[in-house]
């Protein structure tokens, strides 16, 4: 009798322990992130963006922000807060962009900024998703009859100060034994005006911004973008170090947009697919199975909301860089020979 009682007691204790552990395991998607908490408390994401460059981030005639970086911001807001419009955009110049992030004024910096070793270490910043693969490109007038960057020996090029660009030009010149003179401008408007007037032989910036600059010229057809890229400029989001879960979420929002394109889900067909999905990968993506969202600290419909709000990566690229006539090139999906790849989810 006593052994039976002992057995029952043991079972009860074990059952209790299993139940307790099981319960805590079941609800243990407790994600600790001060930034995410602050954003949820504020009810608004504060996104640092460019002050105005076609393609990446610009305000249209009615004052609404548009662009690839803006789409990324809206996607994060849709994932975390459920509403893509709950974003405050702070335009930053290249001079102040990193200190604004470091000081905590913005939550994330998505401002066509190259991800480099120095910034990862000296500035104490972490990398979010890489949303634009490009390099430093040159734009010259067609009338100069120049076909390659090596032919620019002795030329003067307009550059914006405060970026990796002026260093790259010096390094390229040294490596190839040519001399390219630079004119350093504080703001792009004066740089464009000088290039337009012929003060310098061309303009240089990362590939996306050069395409944007070309669209801002009086007659874009007069300008040729040279084929060589003299450096790697892989542009992406920056966050502060020390808040890993926030950085992880930011990174996976970008991967979600890529995954949507791989799976063929667009803004238009996401609702239909949600109703009729059978592919387990699609179902996991849309939150019908698995708990990917909860693992990240958001709810499971996060990817569905992202695609509903902004569409997939390809849609956004075509919408903002299509008019600038910049082919996807490196920004194509890996399935088509490009560098954009979403990491597997499971």
């Amino acid at each position, binding site marked *: 009798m006593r052994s039976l009682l002992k057995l029952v007691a043991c079972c009860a204790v074990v059952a209790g322990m299993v139940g307790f552990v099981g319960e805590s395991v079941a609800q243990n998607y407790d994600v600790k992130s001060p930034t995410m908490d602050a954003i949820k408390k504020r009810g608004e994401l504060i996104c640092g963006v460019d002050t105005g460059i076609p393609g990446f981030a610009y305000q249209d005639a009615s004052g609404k922000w548009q662009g690839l970086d803006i789409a990324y911001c809206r996607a994060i807001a849709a994932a975390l807060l459920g509403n893509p419009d709950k974003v405050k955009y702070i335009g930053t110049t*290249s*001079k102040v962009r990193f*200190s604004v992030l*470091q000081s905590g004024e913005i939550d994330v910096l998505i401002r066509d900024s190259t991800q480099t070793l*120095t910034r990862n*270490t*000296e*500035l*104490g910043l972490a990398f979010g998703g890489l949303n634009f693969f490009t390099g430093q490109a040159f734009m010259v007038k067609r009338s*100069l009859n120049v076909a390659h960057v090596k032919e*620019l*020996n*002795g*030329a*003067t090029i*307009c550059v914006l*100060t*405060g*970026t990796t660009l*002026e*260093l790259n*030009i*010096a*390094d390229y*010149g*040294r490596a190839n034994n040519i001399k390219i*003179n*630079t*004119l*350093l*401008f*504080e*703001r792009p408007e*004066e*740089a464009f*005006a*000088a290039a337009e*007037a*012929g*003060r310098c*032989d061309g303009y240089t910036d990362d590939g996306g911004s050069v395409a944007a600059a070309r669209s801002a010229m009086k007659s874009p057809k007069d300008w040729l973008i040279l084929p060589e890229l003299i450096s790697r400029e892989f542009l992406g989001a920056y966050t502060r170090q020390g808040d890993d879960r926030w950085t992880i979420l930011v990174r996976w929002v970008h991967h979600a947009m890529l995954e949507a394109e791989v799976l063929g889900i667009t803004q238009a067909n996401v609702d239909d697919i949600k109703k009729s999905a059978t592919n387990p990968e699609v179902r996991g993506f849309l939150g019908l199975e698995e708990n990917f969202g909860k693992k990240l600290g958001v709810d499971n419909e996060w990817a569905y909301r992202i695609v509903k709000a902004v569409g997939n990566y390809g849609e956004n690229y075509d919408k903002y860089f299509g008019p600038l006539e910049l082919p996807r090139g490196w920004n194509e999906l890996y399935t088509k020979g490009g560098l954009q790849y979403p990491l597997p989810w499971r």
Partner: protein
Amino acid sequence: MIRQPSRRAKIGQWLLLLAIVAGGWLIVENVSENLARKNLHFGFGFLEQQSHFDIPFHLISWTVFNTYGRALLVSLLNTVLVSALAIVTASLLGLLVGVMRLSVNWLVRNIALCYIEFVRNTPQLVQIIFWYVGVLQALPSPRQSIVFPGGILLNIRGLYIPDAVMNPGLEWLSWLALALVVATPFVWRLRVRGERIGSKALLLPLLAVACFAAGVDQVVYPELKGFNLAGGTQVPPELVALWMGIAIYASAFIAEIVRGSIEAIPKGQHEAALSIGLHSWQRLALVILPQALRIMVPQMTSQYLNIIKSSSLGAAIAYPEVFAIFTGTVLNQANKEIETILIVVAIFVTLNLLTSMMMNWYNRRVALVER
């Protein structure tokens, strides 16, 4: 002193000092905390790092291997150059417009008034950008340069002046020539046996030209090679635009100062000068202006300081002065915000003090010595 400050006030001032020192200490604490958090260190060692960027306009030699310290020196020289040019131009122009403001001729008077009012009431940054955009758009491309006699070329890349290459052993002749030219005004005023040397001192510049010409080996003319003109010294349009922008803006204020000073001279001086038969330009140069100078100098000092400070606007039009290079490129590459800004502030304070000291010395020389 009308009355002694109360004891309460005397104690209070020391408490105020204490409060300020405490506040400063708090700020320093916060700064070191924030720097430590970001793994940054305070130090001026970055001045010895290589810069790896190009400065388009430099008065002394510059390569991409030079250090940040040398970048500071190069950009500082650029600042001093544009400030000096602007000070001279603004003074002369301001003097001219100020005198025009007091002319008998109604047309001349009012043209000067329109000029002064328009320039004083529009923002300086917009004026400088306008000069740059206006200057740029007016000049032709290098392939169609305007040619001046003597081989001087003018185009959108700048003003190209032929370079005189000195014979290798005779470079000291060019320094001698420069010294002779600089010494001319001093020699002019020198008194030998009671008499001023005066216009005989003009021999010195002639001697200087002769020295220079003797040492010249060959003259390099600017010509079109590839994209740009090669050879010759280049005066970039950024320099010209900034110089004109600053000088014109300051000249409007200086014109008002000149006018006020001249109007403050008692009427009796005009009448006395008239009565001994001087006509208008002689009156102006010999009687009125020397006296007006006395009144003008303190006010001119603040205008000159403003000119030095406005050279910082060169950052907007790609002129490589201290602001553009140091708080632009170097700040971004080296990530040493506090040190960079401290250096720049120290530079401007020093320039400020030097100019004030020079002007004060000049003021004391021309001031009326009263009992």
